[in-house]
C-alpha cells in the first residue's frame, strides 16, 4: 500500500451509491473525526493541522494551521470561518466535483475548523454558476442540522455553530479572498487593502479565516488519522495528498488524487498519455495564472518548491494539457481576454494594462505588427507585475511572459505567415476521434 501512486481520500466517496447523503457518509466513518476533535482542545486541533503540514489548496499554499493561529483570540468580536468555493481559476475543476460527490466531508471540515478557531458562524461562498453543486451543499448542511452535527450544543460538546450556504453571482475576482468578503457583505467584489489582514479584520471587520474547499475538506482526515499520517504523504515541504485535475488533450482527462510531488509524466501515464498521434506542447501546472511549462518539465515533482524552481507555481494543480495542434498565441490571447474582462477596475495597472495586452496580442495573432511588439508586451507585463493591487493582475502576465520565453518563434511565425499558421479544427475533441476512427 505504501507504493500507491494514487491515494484517494476526498475522492474515495465518489463511487459510492448516493455518496452525497448523510447515511452514505456516516457509513464510511463520517462525522467521527468531529467527536475526536471535540475531545481535543481547540489549540490542539490547530497544532495537529500545523504538524500535518497542510498548506492551502486554493493556490498560494499558505500553511493552514499557521493561518488559524493568527486569529487573535483576545479580540472580543465574533470569529468567522469563510470557505472559498468560488472555483473560477481557468483550468481548476476539483472543488466542484468534490462538493457534488462528497459535500459532507466539507461540512465536517467546516465544523472542526470553526471549532478550532472559535467561530460560531461559518459561510460557504459557492460560485453561482454551479446549480447542482449548490443543491448538494445546501442539502448536506440541512441534513447535518437535522442530525445534530450543526446548531447548538453539537454532539453534547457545548459548542454551537451555524453555517450559511451563499451563492455568488459571477465574478472571477470574488475568488480573491478580500474581494470574496466584499461580495459576502453585499458589495461589489473589489479587493481590500491589506493590512489589516482578514485574520484581524475580515468579515464585518472581525477576525476571519478564509480557506479553500479542499483545504477545509482535508481537515477531518488529519484529525481522524493523525498529523503523522497526513505528513507521511507528499514531499518534505509539501505534505499530504491533493487532487490533480487533468484536462485537454489527454486520453483520460479527470481527477487524480495523489501525494504532492507526483510528476506530470506519472499522471499522463495513468491518463493514457497525450491523445493519439500527438505530442505534448505546453501545459499549466496550476491554472492559467501560473506560467506555462513544456515537455521539458515532465519530471518536475508537482509540489510547491519544485514547480516554483521550474519557474512556475503549483497553484491549484489544474493541469491543462495542450498538444502540438494548438497555437500558443491563440491560447494566450484568450486567457488575456479573460483577465481583461474579469479585471475589477480598481487599480490602473491591471485595468488599463490588461486592455493594452489584449490590443497588442490581438494584433500579433492576426499577423500584424512587428517583432518589437514582443518587447512591448514584455514591457507591458513589467508595468503590471508587482504593481497591481491584487494577484489577478500578476496572474494576467504569466501566460504572456512564459509563452514568449518558450515559443518566441511561434509569435514570429504569425508575422511571417500573415496570420495564424494553425488550423484550429485540428485541436477539437472530435478532430481526434475522426483521426482514430
Amino acid at each position, binding site marked *: *500500500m*505504501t507504493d*500507491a501512486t*494514487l*491515494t*484517494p481520500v476526498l*475522492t474515495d*466517496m*465518489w*463511487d459510492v451509491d*448516493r*455518496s*452525497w447523503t448523510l447515511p452514505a457518509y456516516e457509513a464510511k466513518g463520517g462525522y467521527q473525526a468531529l467527536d475526536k476533535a471535540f475531545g*481535543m482542545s481547540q489549540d*490542539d486541533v490547530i497544532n495537529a493541522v500545523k504538524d500535518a503540514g497542510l498548506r492551502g489548496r486554493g493556490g498560494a499554499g499558505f500553511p493552514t494551521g499557521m493561518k488559524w493561529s493568527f486569529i487573535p483570540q483576545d479580540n472580543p468580536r465574533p470569529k468567522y470561518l469563510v470557505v472559498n468555493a468560488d472555483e473560477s481559476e*481557468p483550468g*481548476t475543476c476539483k472543488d466542484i466535483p468534490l462538493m*457534488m*460527490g462528497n459535500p459532507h466531508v466539507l461540512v465536517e471540515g467546516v465544523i472542526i475548523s470553526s471549532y478550532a478557531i472559535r467561530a460560531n*458562524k461559518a459561510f460557504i461562498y459557492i460560485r*453561482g*454558476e*454551479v*446549480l*447542482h453543486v449548490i443543491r*448538494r451543499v*445546501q442539502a448536506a448542511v440541512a441534513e447535518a442540522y437535522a442530525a445534530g452535527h450543526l446548531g447548538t450544543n453539537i454532539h453534547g460538546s457545548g459548542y454551537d455553530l451555524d453555517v450559511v450556504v*451563499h*451563492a455568488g*453571482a*459571477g465574478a*472571477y475576482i470574488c475568488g480573491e479572498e478580500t474581494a470574496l468578503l466584499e461580495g459576502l*457583505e*453585499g*458589495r*461589489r*467584489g473589489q479587493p481590500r487593502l491589506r493590512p489589516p489582514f482578514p485574520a484581524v479584520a475580515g468579515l464585518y471587520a472581525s477576525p476571519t479565516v478564509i480557506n479553500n474547499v479542499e483545504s477545509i475538506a482535508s481537515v477531518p482526515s488529519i484529525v*481522524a488519522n*493523525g498529523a*503523522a499520517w497526513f505528513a507521511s*504523504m507528499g514531499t518534505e515541504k509539501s505534505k499530504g495528498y491533493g487532487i490533480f*485535475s487533468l484536462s*485537454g488533450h489527454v486520453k*483520460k*482527462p*479527470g*481527477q487524480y*488524487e495523489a501525494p504532492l510531488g507526483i510528476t506530470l509524466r506519472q499522471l499522463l501515464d495513468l491518463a493514457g498519455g497525450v491523445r493519439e498521434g500527438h505530442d505534448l506542447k505546453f501545459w499549466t501546472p496550476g491554472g492559467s495564472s501560473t506560467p506555462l511549462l513544456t515537455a521539458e518539465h515532465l519530471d518536475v515533482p508537482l509540489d510547491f518548491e519544485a514547480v516554483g524552481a521550474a519557474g512556475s507555481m503549483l497553484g491549484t494543480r*489544474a493541469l*491543462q494539457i495542450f498538444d502540438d495542434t*494548438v497555437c500558443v498565441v491563440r491560447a494566450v490571447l*484568450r*486567457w488575456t481576454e*479573460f483577465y481583461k*474582462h474579469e479585471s475589477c477596475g480598481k487599480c490602473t495597472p491591471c485595468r488599463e494594462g490588461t486592455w493594452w495586452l489584449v490590443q497588442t496580442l490581438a494584433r500579433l495573432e492576426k499577423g500584424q505588427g512587428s517583432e518589437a511588439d514582443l518587447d512591448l508586451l514584455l514591457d507591458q507585463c513589467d508595468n503590471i507585475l508587482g504593481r497591481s493591487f491584487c494577484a489577478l493582475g500578476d496572474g494576467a502576465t504569466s501566460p504572456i511572459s512564459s509563452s514568449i520565453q518558450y515559443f518566441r518563434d511561434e509569435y514570429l511565425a504569425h508575422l511571417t505567415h500573415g496570420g495564424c499558421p494553425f488550423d*484550429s479544427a485540428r*485541436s*477539437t*475533441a*472530435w478532430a481526434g476521434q475522426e483521426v482514430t476512427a
Partner: protein
Amino acid sequence: MSTLDDKTLAELREIAGRYPEKRSGLLPMLHLVQSVQGKVTPEAIEACAEVLDISAAEVSGVATFYTMYKRHGVGDFHVGVCTNTLCAVMGGDAIFARLKEHLDVGNDEVAEKREGDQHTVSLEHVECNAACDYAPVVMVNWEFMDNQTPDGAVEMVEALRTGQEVTSTRGPRLCTWREAERVLAGFPDGRVDEGPAAGPASLAGLEIAREKGWTAPSAPVAETPAVAAPEKGEAQ
C-alpha cells in the same frame, strides 16, 4: 411582468435575516428577484434597497458588477458556452459559432420564439465553469452539459425549445432559468437527489486506484493519546 408580491417581500427579508448584517443578503436577494421577474428591474432594486436600508444606487452598483444579474431578460433556458481557452480549443468556439448561427442571435441575446415553440432559449459565452475535464462544456441554466459537440448542442437547444425534457449530463432534469435562480437564493427545489455522484471524468483516477488496489496509507491502529509516534518512514 409580475410585481413583487408580499410573499416575495417576506422572502427577501428572510434572506437578509440569515446574516449577522443584513446587507450580506444582497446577492441571494438579487437572485430571488430574478426568479420572480426574470431580470433585475428598477422595482426590484428599490425593494432590495428598502429591505436593506441602503440606497437604490448602491444596489444598482452591485447588480451591474456581477455577470449573473441580467438587466435584459434571458430565455427560459439560458445556454452558456464555455469559450475560455481550454474549452475553446477543444471545440467550444465551434459550438458557440454554430449555436449563434442556428439561433440567429448575438452574445447574450434571446432567440426568437417560433410558432409552436414551448420555450425560449438565450445564448451567452461563459468563462471557465470548473468542468475542464469535460471540455467542451455547455451550461444550461447553470447545469452541466458535458462533452458537447456542435451537432449535439443544436439538437439540445431544439429539444428545449420544443418542450422536451432535457437532463443534465451530470445533474438533474433541467428546470427553467427562473426556477434555478430561486435555488440560488437559498430555496431548495427537491432535485438534489437526481443525477450521479460524479461523472466519468471525475472518477478517472479513482477507478485506476480501485483496479490497482491503491489506497491512502492506513490509519495508525492503536489510538494512543496525542504523543503516539506513528510509523514515520512508512511512505518510503
